[in-house]
């Protein structure tokens, strides 16, 4: 089966510019996650969707970050405006459901560099 697809793979922007990342999860996976991974660190959850509902966005900096999953399939994560500290890899993952016994499948990530 096809894996989690993310685009773009790399993005370089000037600070204060907007940026958007796109994710298409594995077909049939109801749960979608956005993680942020800083260099040398583990992934940190930003937001989790069950179908089109954001069920956990407590770690999402809502003043500049937003996300949507309108039809319960693909998702977009946006940053506006970007800051230097936002430079990181943004990972998308999906699983069949949000139950703890389901493995998460990760996409290759988008590496964001803010200059």
């Amino acid at each position, binding site marked *: 089966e096809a894996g989690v697809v993310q685009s773009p793979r790399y993005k370089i922007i000037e600070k204060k510019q907007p940026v958007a990342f796109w994710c298409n999860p594995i077909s049939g996976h109801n749960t979608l996650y956005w993680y942020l991974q800083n260099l040398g*660190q*583990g992934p940190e959850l930003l937001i989790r969707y069950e179908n089109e509902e954001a069920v*956990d966005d407590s770690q999402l900096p809502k003043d500049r970050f937003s996300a949507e999953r309108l039809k319960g399939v693909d998702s977009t994560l946006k940053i506006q405006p970007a800051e230097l500290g936002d430079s990181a890899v943004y990972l998308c993952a999906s699983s069949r*459901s949000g139950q*703890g*016994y389901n493995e998460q499948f*990760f996409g*290759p990530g988008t590496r964001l560099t803010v200059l």
Partner: protein
Amino acid sequence: QQPVQSPQAVILREGEDAVINCSSSKALYSVHWYRQKHGEAPVFLMILLKGGEQKGHDKISASFNEKKQQSSLYLTASQLSYSGTYFCGTDAGGGADGLTFGKGTHLIIQP
């Protein structure tokens, strides 16, 4: 709260064994293990559930001590392909809270 992984890094010769540990201060529902190679996505290795159930690859073994909230990943007869960073992700809410990942253990296998 972030789980603590140990060691931070380990260097092995091909064929040697390694143990990677993950410890949490919270009561856990499950522990997930992933391996990530440089510039690539984390790849699922194993889930260990409260109650003893496990799900994962046949060539990977791990344990979960529910009383101590500790998990260990056992890599035996290591191969060059085992190199990478290993992350444990802990779930304290049965999936309700998502996974909290440790900082990772860097494993280098030398020929």
